[in-house]
């Protein structure tokens, strides 16, 4: 091993945004998470909780509700009043439909997946029909006095419970009329609060409606009679979220105190069939409000203002005690937010709406192994680049020579030329980008900074030659016929001959840049690729997967290397490391 100088970069002031909604998809075992900046992320729970896909946020699009329909379509609704469907292949927004009811607070897909309900600011509940390629407004339910904050379908699809302020309504779906109106006690620890907000409702198949509210109560209602059955006061603050398991034998609620409570349906005595809901375990993994919870068959999932996504497995449901049975706290981003220029010792940090360019500090001192060396020149903040428009930055990159910066939002691609004159920098935007360069999922510069590789969201891969202040489009690799899968990861060999690219699920493609053609495809593996790199001299491609496996693939030989094969046989990477990112 060589000698390294390690920089401790403590000036990347990364601020993640809070989690607003989570939606668990039982069919594909995936979890959709929306954050307060409008970003929607999709985690694959089978693949070691890896963030597979993500949809960049938008300033005006605050997501308030998120749900899956038929296991493959993802909808979100927000305070801008629009219902959005996401294209999970191309990783962009398919369409947005205005519900015309003011801000949307809640949304629920019918158990059969054919209908979509939204609850609006004006008290209206709107029913949409989900057609194969779009959604279509069907009708309004009886309009309520105040905003509809929560919605839940009865598993048979005949009734709907809607939580509003101070009361819960039960609608008959056929007629659209309110069958029951259940008033919630405003009293809170003996003091009458102004309002009691029903943050969440859940409709069980036996007709029980469970509500959670701002007075800290979890209440059980009988929807047939509209009466309160049981009341659990569990918190001194709001209870903000609820999620019920598919078997309806347990549910989870999250409170504004950061506590998550688990409720279970247990039999009263061992020899009777009578069952009752009992609060069992509290979990305190959050420091702030738990805004969203989800209940997978084996785990409780919670997220909130403190930005952590916590996956707490249920011990009694876990068969084997392995790595999956441990508590997971997803805190760090799964995407690359930092790029560096080796030549000029520069770091480019990506934030939601701006980029920062820093020069690393340097030292002339030398020391022993493990010593902390004094800095002769402090790290320097060179540039603060704000984006134009309300869209979040998807990706960014600085060239190895440090003279190019590229970044992309959902609708625009930006390329800048940096000029260094002593200590001054000047920035010059390269204008007149070609029409096909609209939006990029990944940007990469070649080692000599002469070429720019851009993975666009249509699955195509553009190669651009960069000249002094201008550029030239060289080639576009079109996706394999029939697939529209987007490429998320790129790696280029240091000699500039090879380019490896990977999507979310299919194998890794290796292109020969000199001849501008596909060289080979690494066979696809069960788990998604988390990182790619090409070794400098041997041109071996190293691939890391989310199940903590590392493969080495020789590009010239078009096969796995000997080392990779022995590693696979021995399986020494099995449980040694955290997921590779």
């Amino acid at each position, binding site marked *: 091993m060589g000698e390294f100088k390690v920089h401790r970069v403590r000036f990347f002031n990364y601020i993640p945004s809070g989690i607003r909604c989570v939606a668990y998809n039982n069919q594909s075992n995936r979890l959709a998470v929306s954050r307060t900046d409008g970003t929607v992320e999709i985690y694959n729970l089978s693949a070691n909780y890896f963030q597979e896909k993500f949809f960049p946020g938008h300033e005006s699009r605050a997501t308030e509700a998120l749900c899956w329909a038929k296991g493959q379509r993802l909808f979100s609704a927000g305070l801008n009043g629009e219902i959005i469907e996401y294209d999970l292949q191309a990783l962009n927004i398919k369409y947005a439909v205005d519900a015309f009811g003011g801000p949307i607070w809640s949304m629920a897909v019918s158990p059969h997946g054919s209908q979509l309900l939204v609850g609006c600011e004006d008290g209206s509940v709107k029913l949409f029909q989900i057609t194969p390629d779009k959604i279509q407004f069907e009708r309004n339910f009886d309009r309520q006095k105040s905003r509809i904050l929560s919605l839940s379908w009865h598993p048979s699809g005949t009734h709907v419970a809607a939580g509003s302020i101070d009361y819960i309504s039960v609608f008959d779906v056929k007629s659209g009329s309110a069958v029951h109106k259940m008033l919630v006690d405003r009293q809170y620890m003996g003091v009458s609060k102004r309002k009691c907000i029903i943050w969440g409702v859940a409709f069980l198949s036996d007709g029980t409606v469970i509500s959670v509210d701002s007075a800290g109560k979890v209440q059980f209602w009988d929807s047939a009679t509209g009466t309160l059955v049981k009341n659990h006061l569990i918190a001194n603050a709001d209870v903000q979220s609820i999620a019920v398991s598919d078997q309806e034998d347990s549910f989870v609620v999250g409170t504004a105190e950061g506590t998550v409570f688990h409720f279970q349906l247990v039999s009263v005595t*061992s020899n009777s069939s009578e069952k009752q809901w009992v609060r*069992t*375990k509290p979990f305190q993994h959050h420091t702030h409000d738990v805004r969203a919870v989800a209940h997978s068959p084996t785990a409780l999932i919670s997220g909130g203002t403190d930005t952590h996504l916590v996956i707490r497995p249920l011990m*009694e449901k876990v068969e084997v005690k392995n790595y999956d049975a441990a508590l997971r706290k997803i805190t760090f981003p799964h995407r690359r937010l930092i790029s560096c220029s080796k030549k000029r010792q520069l770091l480019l940090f990506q934030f939601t709406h701006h980029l920062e360019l820093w020069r690393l500090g340097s030292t002339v001192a030398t020391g022993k192994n493990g010593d902390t060396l004094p800095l002769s020149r402090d790290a320097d903040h060179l540039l603060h680049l704000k984006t134009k428009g309300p869209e979040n930055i998807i990706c960014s990159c600085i060239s190895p020579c440090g003279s190019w910066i590229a970044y992309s939002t959902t609708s625009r691609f930006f390329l800048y030329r940096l000029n260094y004159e002593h200590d001054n920098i000047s920035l010059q935007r390269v204008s007149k980008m070609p029409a096909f360069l609209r939006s990029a999922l990944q940007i990469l510069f070649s080692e000599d900074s002469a070429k720019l590789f851009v993975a666009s969201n249509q699955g195509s891969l553009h190669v651009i030659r960069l000249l002094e202040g201008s550029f030239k489009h060289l080639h576009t690799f079109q996706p394999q016929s029939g697939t529209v899968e987007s490429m998320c990861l790129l790696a280029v060999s240091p000699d500039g001959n090879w380019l490896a690219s990977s999507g979310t699920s299919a194998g890794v493609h290796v292109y020969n840049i000199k001849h501008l053609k596909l060289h080979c495809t690494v066979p696809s593996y069960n788990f998604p690729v988390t990182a790619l790199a090409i070794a400098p001299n041997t041109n071996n491609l190293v691939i890391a997967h989310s199940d903590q496996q590392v493969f080495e693939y020789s590009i010239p030989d078009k096969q796995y290397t000997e080392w990779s094969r022995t590693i696979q046989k021995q399986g020494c990477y099995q449980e040694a490391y955290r997921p590779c990112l």
Partner: protein
Amino acid sequence: MVAEESVRVVRCGGSELNFRRAVFSADSKYIFCVSGDFVKVHSTATEECVHILQGHRNLVTGIQLNPNNHLQLYSCSFDGTIKLWDYIDGILIKTFTVGHKLHALFTLACAEDSVFVIINKEKPDVFQLFSVKLPKSSSRETEAKELYLVLDYINQSPKCVAFGNEGEYVAAVRDFYLSVYFFKKKTTSRFTLSSSKNKKHAKNNFTCVACHPKEDCIATGHKDGKIRLWRNFDDGKKYTYTCLHWHHDMVMDLAFSVTGTSLLSGGRESVLVEWRDATEKKKEFLPRLGATIEHISVSPAGDLFCTSHSDNKIIIIHRNLEASAVIQGLVKDSNIFTGLMIDPRTKALVLNGKPGHLQFYSLQHDKQLYNLDIIQQEYINDDGLIQIELTKAAFDCCGNWLATVEQRQEKETELELQMKLWMYNKKTQGFVLNTKINMPHEDHITALCFCNAEKFENPTLVTASKDGHFKVWILTDDSDIYKKAVGWTCDFVGSYHKYQATNCCFSEDGSLLAVSFEEIVTIWDSETWELKCTFCQRAGNIRHLCFGRLTCSKYLLGATENGILCCWNLLSCALEWSAKLTIRVMEPDPRSENIAAVSQSSAGSDLFVFKPSEPRPLYIQKNISREEVQWGVFVPRDVPESFTSEAYQWLNRSQFYFLTKSQSLLTFSTKSPEEKLTPTSKQLLAEESLPTTPFYFILGKHRQHQDKKINEALESELVQLPLTENIPAISELLHTPAHVLPSASFLCSKFVNSLLLSKETKSGEEILEDVDMEEEKESGDDSDEERDFTEKTQDTNDTDLGEDIIHQLSKSEEKELRKFRKVDYSWITVL
């Protein structure tokens, strides 16, 4: 009398009431608690002890109601027997001999002929739960030999075993695990909590367990103050639990209410917590219960709870969390610094009680009379905190004055010392602080005594201290112009060659004061405070010092550290005799010349009773206790005994009580335990067991009394009215516990009648009926008040009416009496 029987050392009450959970009777009228070898039956309404169930020959370790007959009670003991009692009459019905030391007893309604006991068979720390089949036989004593093992390796405390869901399963906890045995399936599930050394789980130990009466739910208490509610435990893997956390310290006991809607918990905080619906947010508190809650029990009727506390008391609590009665035994959980004393007024035993208090304990009734708060500061229950301690106390001869000394020493050089003098106030019937003296001495006070001679009109107090001085304090007029306030001031300070003063003692007539300075005894004239003479034996520091009494008042006795007992003659100022004896306790009998000395040897403690005039002891009892005897006291008898045997004559006028290191209060008795019992109103209790409907109160009893009354009235016509004590009606009234008295309205007439010198019995038919109806109603409504009222009137009548009516009556009084006679209740016989 029973002079033939030998003198035995007996336990004389003051045993632990809090050793096991108390048990309520089915109607919540009585509460049963273990008390040493006995089981006590108390009334829940009046706190009064109504029965003592005696028969076990060792510590009673468990009591349970017979589930098949709620008028019967099972008890088990270390003596290896299970006894069945009829508690209403206090009769032993049956004895089952098991043969092993029984540590706890459980009964189940569904297991008709068997009970459950905890037995320790082989290893010292391995306890097992057995089911014992009780054979059905008519004989009073049977052997129960059929034992079935239910659970092995459990905790010995009955708090750690609980039966649930009408006997479907039994849960037991020990260390870090909970085991549940299902009777039907005959399987045991075991749930273990992590017990790692790290801080979070270090105090996960289970401390107690309780089962929900209706649901499959087990509540367990833990050392870190958490309560866990276990459910779904019949399926090994799917079990789940909830935590309730309020206690900051160990949960001492748990109990579910009868319906299971609430859970009660208690611990060191002395707060009873009620968890409604077993939820964390709905809890109610009953704070300031005085001491650590050791046990909680719930009445089968559901209207009462009770808590047993570490200071040997039981508090009966209403369902709405209001304490309604306190049964207080001898407080035992503190060090006894003051020794044993007798309050001259109440003849109660006085010693350290609760922290900072003096307790007055009635030996006759085996109950605490009251607590006197000496330190008058809030007691903070915390480990490692150095508390103010009440170290010395003394009464003067007639009980008018009480002197107390309290101290607190945090560091070697920082001594806080305070002496308080309390005056007895007749109005409030209690001691009132009169003088507070800060730092009466520079160093620890070693002895404190009042001058007991009655001829002194000025009470005098002497304190001896390690600082080498003894101080004489006298009562003087305080600087009040009305000359009403009095206070204590220092009159004289004496010392002897800078030796530490270790003991002080007044002679019986008060003329001499003896103060010992380490090895030297000095005699001072109490008139002039002049040093009269000194005695020195060079046999170690003087540990005990006392003057002889009555005919032996010319002798002074001193016991030294090196095991020499010396007797000096004060007339000749010479040593009369000395003996080699290591004396722990030396107490003079106030009623005779006798002096009792307890010596300590390796085999045990021996008692010697002797007169100072002769060195030969009157009586020797070897090995009175295996432990060290710490304190002793002579208690004068109310009625002198008349033992003819020479050996027991010393017990004629007083009784000797002593306290051992393990705080058991013992005495000497010649009587069999049955005779020792104070008579209780057994026949009244039997009546009480009949169904007492309101009609019964109005009619049934009334008739009986009416019949009696007529007879009595006829008899009393002829005779002169006897003394009040001899009238049966009055004595019955005065000696019957208030809760079994009939209602006041007819007691009143009976009472008045019994006092009258009636000449003719005339039925007053002219009385208006409606007046009587009103009275009837009143008696029904607020009978309690009326009872109190009648009691009060009795008190006054005892003293006043008793004399006045017999001798002469004024005219107005005669008129009054005539009126009374008109209000005759004989009309009720017509009913």
